[in-house]
């Protein structure tokens, strides 16, 4: 058994930012992650981080408005105001820690344009901003000697007397299951992209954090809002940064036409992601694609710009699509990228389960609502990661450690043993996961309808039943990845069910949730959040109002 004041589950940007903040507030903090921190999926964020720097004549209210309009008015405006107001100081803090942000002629932080925003306010490091920030935060973690439970897999949250007071986790290296007690727990375990096949997300993005909180009694919110990124490679679903369009790249169809002219005449390629993805899918469906793709055209940008600002994606295009970006258009298509929804939290990052906080993609505060703007995700991780760390530290200072014992892990040990003991004939996790991914990507994609979503619900039920009999051929203790993937699949099925149920519930089209059978936004009935919690028998669905501070919903035109 291990004791800490604050534990943080997940070591991406939100988790490490939270760790730094908790540490600065004078408590003992530890980070638990199923991979080494620098392997976290934050490193895949390419394009940049948004911040309106007031001293440069970009008021934060403009950034807030762009974010709210981008969210299709589903974001909670109090949370958006906080995020946009605190953005500048977070970016400067990262610069002071050592992030090598790109500079302008005068040596100040340089910006690039990004989708859905009327002002260039995206700060960046070439096209590997997330990686550059993740490395720097890990440097700070090393400097502060924060304990990292590296390659530990969290199996459950411990709840006693209605409060979260720790976690049960397996050391993947030894296979041993341990209790880690804490006075406050911050969930920062990232997204669930692997529910969809293909996805831009790394193989580790299996919704563990959302499912852990859900199983512990915390509600999930806005789960129907799944972002499809407009530019992903066909071969492996790899992400081609929005930075390319920010630097001026075009989207063209099979006829060489810049089709965004017909969908978003003023913002063109830089309209919100849901808008661009729908436009692309419409072009493809109407026969103006090639092999299920349209094209990202960077030819006019020139080799120098590509080398300096888009080096990573030009490598990706070369390695995975066999295309020289400076000479040929790259075939791309919309691909699942981000979950706007997550564990419901308030603006102080507290979930409805006392003792449990949430930040980053795993959480839903909700600053992204129906559609997240590019380069707002990194900002979300930093602002709410820091707030989470501060809040959790304050709680930890006021409370004693709970008196739970090592036996709190007995249940998880038994579940794992039962899984390993199953014998004969059952299937491995792989096929179930693949069928889940294909189902979600088919029925819960850019366009949805009642019939498709009902089919998906039936399918998740069938997969759940098969999962209850799944086999784990690897019986070893050391680094048993076979067991880990099987456990992850359980988390994925919980998340999938919450997505499908929320999507069926929302009887309108808003943001990323676009129904071909109900095409209009309906502010009278559906300007509200949908929450799913684990009920006694069936999941329970509730609604909650959207917080409107100063921006009344308007028609959304780009």
């Amino acid at each position, binding site marked *: 058994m291990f004791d800490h004041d604050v534990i943080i589950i997940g070591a991406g940007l939100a988790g490490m930012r939270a760790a730094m903040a908790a540490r600065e507030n004078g408590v003992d903090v530890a980070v638990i992650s199923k991979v080494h921190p620098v392997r976290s999926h934050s490193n895949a964020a390419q394009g940049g981080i948004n911040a309106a720097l007031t*001293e440069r004549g970009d008021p934060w209210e403009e950034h807030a408005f762009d974010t709210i309009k981008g969210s299709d008015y589903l974001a909670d405006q109090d949370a958006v105001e906080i995020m946009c107001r605190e953005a500048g100081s977070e970016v*400067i803090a990262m610069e002071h*820690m050592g992030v*090598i942000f*790109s500079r302008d*002629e005068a040596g100040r932080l340089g910006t690039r344009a990004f989708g859905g925003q009327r002002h260039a306010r995206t700060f960046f490091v070439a096209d590997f901003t997330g990686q550059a920030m993740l490395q720097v935060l890990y440097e700070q973690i090393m400097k502060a000697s924060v304990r990292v439970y590296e390659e530990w897999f969290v199996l459950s949250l411990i709840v006693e007397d209605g409060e979260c007071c720790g976690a049960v986790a397996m050391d993947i290296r030894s296979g041993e299951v341990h209790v880690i007690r804490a006075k406050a727990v911050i969930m920062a375990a990232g997204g669930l992209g692997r529910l969809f096949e293909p996805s831009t997300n790394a193989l580790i993005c299996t919704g563990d954090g959302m499912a852990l909180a859900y199983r512990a009694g915390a509600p999930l919110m806005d789960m129907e809002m799944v972002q499809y990124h407009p530019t992903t490679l066909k071969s492996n679903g790899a992400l081609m940064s929005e930075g390319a369009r920010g630097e001026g790249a075009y989207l063209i169809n099979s006829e060489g036409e810049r089709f965004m002219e017909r969908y978003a005449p003023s913002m063109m390629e830089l309209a919100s992601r849901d808008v661009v993805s729908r436009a692309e899918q419409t072009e493809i469906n109407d026969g103006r694609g090639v092999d299920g793709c349209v094209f990202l055209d960077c030819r006019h940008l020139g080799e120098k710009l590509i080398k300096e600002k888009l080096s990573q994606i030009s490598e*990706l295009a070369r390695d995975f699509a066999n295309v020289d970006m400076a000479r040929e258009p790259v075939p791309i298509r919309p691909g699942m990228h981000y979950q706007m929804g997550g564990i419901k939290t308030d603006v102080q990052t507290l979930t409805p389960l006392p003792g449990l906080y949430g930040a980053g993609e795993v959480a839903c505060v909700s600053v992204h609502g129906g559609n997240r703007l590019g380069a707002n995700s990194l900002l979300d991780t930093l602002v709410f990661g820091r707030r989470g760390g501060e809040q959790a530290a304050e709680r930890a200072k006021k409370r004693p450690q709970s008196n739970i014992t090592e036996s709190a892990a007995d249940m998880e040990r038994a579940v794992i043993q039962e899984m390993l003991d199953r014998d004969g004939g059952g299937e*491995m996790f792989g096929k179930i996961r693949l069928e889940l991914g294909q189902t979600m990507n088919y029925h819960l994609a850019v366009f949805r309808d009642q019939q498709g979503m009902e089919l998906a619900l039936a399918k998740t039920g069938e997969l759940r039943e098969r999962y209850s009999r799944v086999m784990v051929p690897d019986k070893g203790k050391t680094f048993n990845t*076979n067991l880990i993937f099987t456990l992850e699949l359980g988390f994925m099925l919980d998340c999938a069910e919450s997505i499908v149920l929320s999507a069926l519930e929302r009887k309108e089209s808003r943001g990323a949730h676009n129904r071909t059978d109900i095409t209009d936004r309906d502010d009278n009935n559906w300007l509200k959040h949908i929450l799913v919690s684990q009920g006694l028998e069936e999941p329970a669905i509730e609604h909650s109002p959207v917080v409107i501070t100063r921006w009344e919903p308007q028609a959304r035109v780009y």
Partner: protein
Amino acid sequence: MDVTLNVKRFDPDVDQPAPYYQEYSLEVEDSSTVLDGLIKIREEIDGTLALRCSCRSAICGSCAMRINGQARLACNTKVADAVPNGNGAIVVEPPGNMPVVKDLVVDFKPFWDKIRAVEPWLQHMGTKPQHEHIVTNESMLDLAGVMDCIMCGACVSDCTVLEVDSNFLGPAALAKAYRFVADPRDSEHGWRLGELNEYGGVWDCTRCMQCVEVCPKDVDPMGRIMALRDKAMEAGYNRTYGARHAAAFTKHVEHSGRVDELRLPIESKGIFNIVEMLKLAPVGIRALLRGKMPPIIHKSNPGMDHVRRIFEKAEKRR
């Protein structure tokens, strides 16, 4: 296409664990990567195979391993390119210079211990500016080349010095050190260079180029180590064996167009370094007996003006 992967395996959970090779034959797409093949094995053929992987796009640094004897990322190595002679088995082994945990999974502790040893965080002792630091974009672009490092360990795996001297900081940690020494915002260059000049530091690289060859992100670790040597000498750290060797080498070539093999070791070690001079004596005697003693009078190469002009040009470019 059909392909055979010959995977080096190791299961620590059995009695008397020992490494062995296991062949897997499978069908993959023509465009598949070695990682796709390994994932297919562990998900469809043999669930006990252990490896690390995550992003599939050469960003997370998880899947460095030896493929046909050379460290690479499995996720950006195409099966079609890796099949030896068009039809042989692709040999897949864990990365080198780190202890194996299971199959293709190694213990990265030695890797991270060395990264940590160079104190890899920005040290800024003065007062912080109110806004951002004002620095040139060029200086940041130079650092971006190193920050592109994904800590995959390919360079460490195939470093020929680490193979014989585990005390060497190694290419990844030294490249990371360069990132701070070359950062105009860091105020601790002097102290850092002093540390890097010690045993295990920049002078222990043998310039074998392996790290440059295997780096999947073109970080050029060896180039960064050479740049650190230059910076160390410029900063006045010129009393080490390596620095003296470099200085004497340069001096000879500038004066005569070639190395004076008789004086190079003496000047490198320092003529007043009695212990080292006594160690050199038997080498000299053996060379003399076998008729391999370099000439006592060192003559210039013909065309010395050309050599001098090269030096003048190089001097101007600094």
